[in-house]
């Protein structure tokens, strides 16, 4: 939120911004980087390995038993090439959700970090924007790393695969904004467990490890309503450079989800941070 | 036979001699205090009595048993109130008492009425179904004390029982402890509060740097190591030190502190008159009776609470 947008904005928006932001998001981000500098680099790097382990285990082990599957546009691709983009999409989702739900909840309830921040001139919008930025930054590092692994293993066959990195950020943004808004309704750790209970089936069934064609049609429609499925399909199309009308639908889904998520979180900011 | 007997009891952590060859005895029914600043070795001594800290050398008997050999027997006869409350936050108030009693092998049919009784003793009956997290500091402390009584111990170890409590909560707690003493429970209390030691203890040892520097009843210690009265005068923080030499003439002993000067004398009012007569007019002055604080200052050259 720069000063110039505040001046140009209509009066109501200006009032709202003044109440929720000091325009000093930078301070929150600087703190985030200070934490990363102090953190053991092993922690940072280790986050990168989880999708790689999945890719190696499933791709090599199961790949040998499965052989090829139908990729985008019906062209046969190896099983490893089938799951690699899906793992990138789901790790973008997992990372963003972890940062915007558990992490925010912990800092809010236990570390009381935000209390200290909000006792300064910072507003809730600054804190939320800063946290989402940091989540996206970590997501960006992992996306670059994993895309590199995909390329080295020869699982991407198109230059379009590079576009998987910004798309991973878009997926992360959508989930982070939504996750933060949902966190504003939670008061105990037990309730936070429900996030995992929703995430696990989404990960397992969103055509990550097998195509949804194995399900009856009703179940397929349900899966197709879930955000992760769109992320997975979009990534898969990018990895081989195959586009069709559905590409726009997938992309549109996440654009809309990000806008709605940010709007939702903005509405819930005060109940999240100022309770 | 003493209920606790320590000879040359020592605990070292690497180079640090946390408890340095201390010896003492506690008789049944006695209320015994370990007085000293933080880090004097009081808590370590308490933990060695319960066998939850292994001594480095020396001899220690509790009810004639060595806590390191007969830990279960010794701990079954002890009630322990640790310095920091370690109540079970996942259980409710009453369940904390019952589950703790289970660790002593006590059956539920004994524990259920006992828990209600202890809740009443701790004035927590209305909070029986409350989560421990929602109790105030004083309530948690009382619950911890009630918990220590669940096995009907003959000896109660209290490590800083009232630290962090407001004055009213402290008085209520002291009253509860006094009643236990009346019933013949041996109390062993560590504290760095003089008033607490004076209220609760028949006899105490003053500890500093792991050693016992004095032993006796509160009155006895004051008689031996201090005068009857103390005159406290303040001349402003920049002048106090400069006037020390001139003030020496008016007292048996003098203690300059950063913010005030203490003059030890048997007649405080007369000393104050003499000081004024000599043309030294303090900004404020106070005459009071000597306390254990003064004893400690005399023995260690340091104040108890820094």
């Amino acid at each position, binding site marked *: 939120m720069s000063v110039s947008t505040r001046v140009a904005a209509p009066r109501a928006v200006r009032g709202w911004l003044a109440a929720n932001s000091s325009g000093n998001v930078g301070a929150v981000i600087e703190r985030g980087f200070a934490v990363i500098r102090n953190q053991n680099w*092993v*922690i940072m790097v*280790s986050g990168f390995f*989880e999708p790689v*382990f*999945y890719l*190696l*285990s*499933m791709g*090599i*082990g*199961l790949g*040998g*038993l499965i*052989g090829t599957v139908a990729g985008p546009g019906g062209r046969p691709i190896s099983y490893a090439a089938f799951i690699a983009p899906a793992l990138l999409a789901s790790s973008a989702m997992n990372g963003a959700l972890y940062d915007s739900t558990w992490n925010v909840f912990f800092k809010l309830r236990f570390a009381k970090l935000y209390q200290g921040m909000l006792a300064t001139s910072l507003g809730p919008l600054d804190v939320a924007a800063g946290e989402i930025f940091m989540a996206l930054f970590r997501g960006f590092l992992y996306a670059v790393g994993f895309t590199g692994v995909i390329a080295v293993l020869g699982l991407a066959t198109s230059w379009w695969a590079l576009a998987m990195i910004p798309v991973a950020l878009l997926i992360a943004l959508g989930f982070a904004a939504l996750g933060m808004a949902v966190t504003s309704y939670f008061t105990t750790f037990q309730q936070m467990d429900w996030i995992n209970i929703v995430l696990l*089936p989404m990960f*397992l069934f969103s055509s990550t*490890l097998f195509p949804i064609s*194995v399900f009856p049609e009703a179940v397929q429609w349900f899966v197709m309503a879930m955000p992760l499925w769109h992320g997975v399909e979009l990534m898969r199309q990018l990895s081989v450079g195959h586009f069709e009308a559905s590409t726009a639908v997938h992309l549109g889904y996440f654009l809309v989800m990000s806008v709605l998520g940010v709007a939702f979180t903005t509405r819930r900011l005060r109940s999240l941070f100022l309770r | 036979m003493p209920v606790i007997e320590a000879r040359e009891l020592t605990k070292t952590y690497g180079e640090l001699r946390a408890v340095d060859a201390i010896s003492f005895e506690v008789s049944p029914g006695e209320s015994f205090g370990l007085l000293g600043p933080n880090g004097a070795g009081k808590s370590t001594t308490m933990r060695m009595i319960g066998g*939850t*800290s*292994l001594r480095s050398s020396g001899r220690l008997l509790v009810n004639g048993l060595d806590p390191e050999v*007969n*830990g*279960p*027997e010794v*701990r*079954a006869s002890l009630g*322990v109130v*640790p310095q*920091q409350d*370690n109540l*079970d936050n*996942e259980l409710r108030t009453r369940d904390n008492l019952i*589950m*703790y009693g*289970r*660790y*002593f*092998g006590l059956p539920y049919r*004994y524990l259920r009425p*006992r828990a209600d009784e*202890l809740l009443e*003793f701790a*004035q927590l009956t*209305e*909070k029986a179904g409350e989560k421990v997290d929602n109790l*105030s500091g004083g309530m948690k402390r009382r619950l911890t004390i009630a918990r*220590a*009584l669940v*096995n*009907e*111990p*003959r000896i109660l170890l209290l490590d800083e029982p009232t630290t962090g409590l407001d004055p009213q*909560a402290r008085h*209520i707690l*002291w*009253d509860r402890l006094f*009643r236990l003493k*009346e019933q013949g429970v041996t109390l062993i209390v560590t504290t760095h509060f003089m008033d607490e030691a004076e209220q609760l203890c028949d006899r105490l040892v003053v500890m500093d740097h792991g050693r016992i520097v004095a032993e006796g009843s509160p009155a006895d210690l004051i008689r031996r190591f201090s005068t009857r009265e103390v005159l406290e005068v303040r001349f402003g923080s920049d002048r106090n030190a400069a006037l020390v030499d001139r003030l020496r003439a008016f007292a048996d002993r003098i203690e300059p502190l950063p913010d005030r000067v203490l003059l030890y004398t048997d007649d405080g009012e007369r000393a104050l008159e003499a000081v004024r007569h000599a043309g030294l007019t303090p900004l404020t002055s106070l005459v009071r009776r000597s306390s254990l604080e003064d004893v400690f200052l005399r023995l260690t050259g340091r104040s108890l609470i820094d």
Partner: protein
Amino acid sequence: MTDSRGPSLTPRQDSSLRGRGRPRGVPSELVDSNDLAYTGRAIGAGRQAALVRRWGWWYQAEWRLASMKAYWTTVVGYAGLTPLLYVVAMGVGLGTLVDGASGGIGGVPYLTFVAPGLLVSTVVMSAGNEFMWPVMDGFKWGKLYFARGTSPATPGQVAAGELVAVGIRMAAEATLFWLVLVLLGATDPAWSWLMIPIATLGGMALGAPIMAFSATREDEGFEFSMIQRFVLMPMFLFAGTFYPLETMPAYLQWIGWISPMWHGTQLSRAVSFGLPLGGAEVALHVGFLVALLAVGATLAVRSFRRRLTR
């Protein structure tokens, strides 16, 4: 502070004690006269000590199980839902691909093949987690192990009780998982109920050394995350849960050999669908798990003793 006394449960009033030597400043109506220290109803200290010497480990387990009650709905929900989701996704979803391409594994459909591995690895992972943060909590945050230290129980009994309690929970989780498998027809119940003790043994075998390690940690560093990411996760993914270990390149197969998951999974496959195992193999798998449990439990008792008697 409120004076909230209800009717007294021990109405013995000794008026001679009232007010005598009461500290200054305490209003007399706050003093009641329950003979608290000695009601005489408690069993004597000697008897308490004797009971705890024998049953101390169980009292510890009892406490741990009681504290699990607070969130048992989540535990049961999770433990029931997870198997259902995994079995549908892996067995039905992946199964369609695997059975279509290679007609199942070792002559059985993929669902039948993967079900025992899923059961064992879910239980073992869950046991691993149960011995990390909760153990640190007992020493560092809630300090409940220190509260236990003031009871007659010995540090060794505390460690043993923790193992037993988690073992009971693992057995319950395994039972729930097994029921789901039976209902979905993924296993033959005649012998496959043996997967319950097998998975529990596997969980304990991994959990005991993790507990021994957790009990030595003073602060939450990154060690627990590292164990999750570089021990539990690779075991789950590379130890032959989703496909026979022999499918992996030879240089990765050692992960399975040292993983309690693989040993437990192999045994479970034998009882679930009759994977042929020789007597020597069975002895090797069981022996590995028992040995790991014994070593881990010994180390855990040692680290608990060190920590609780400093």
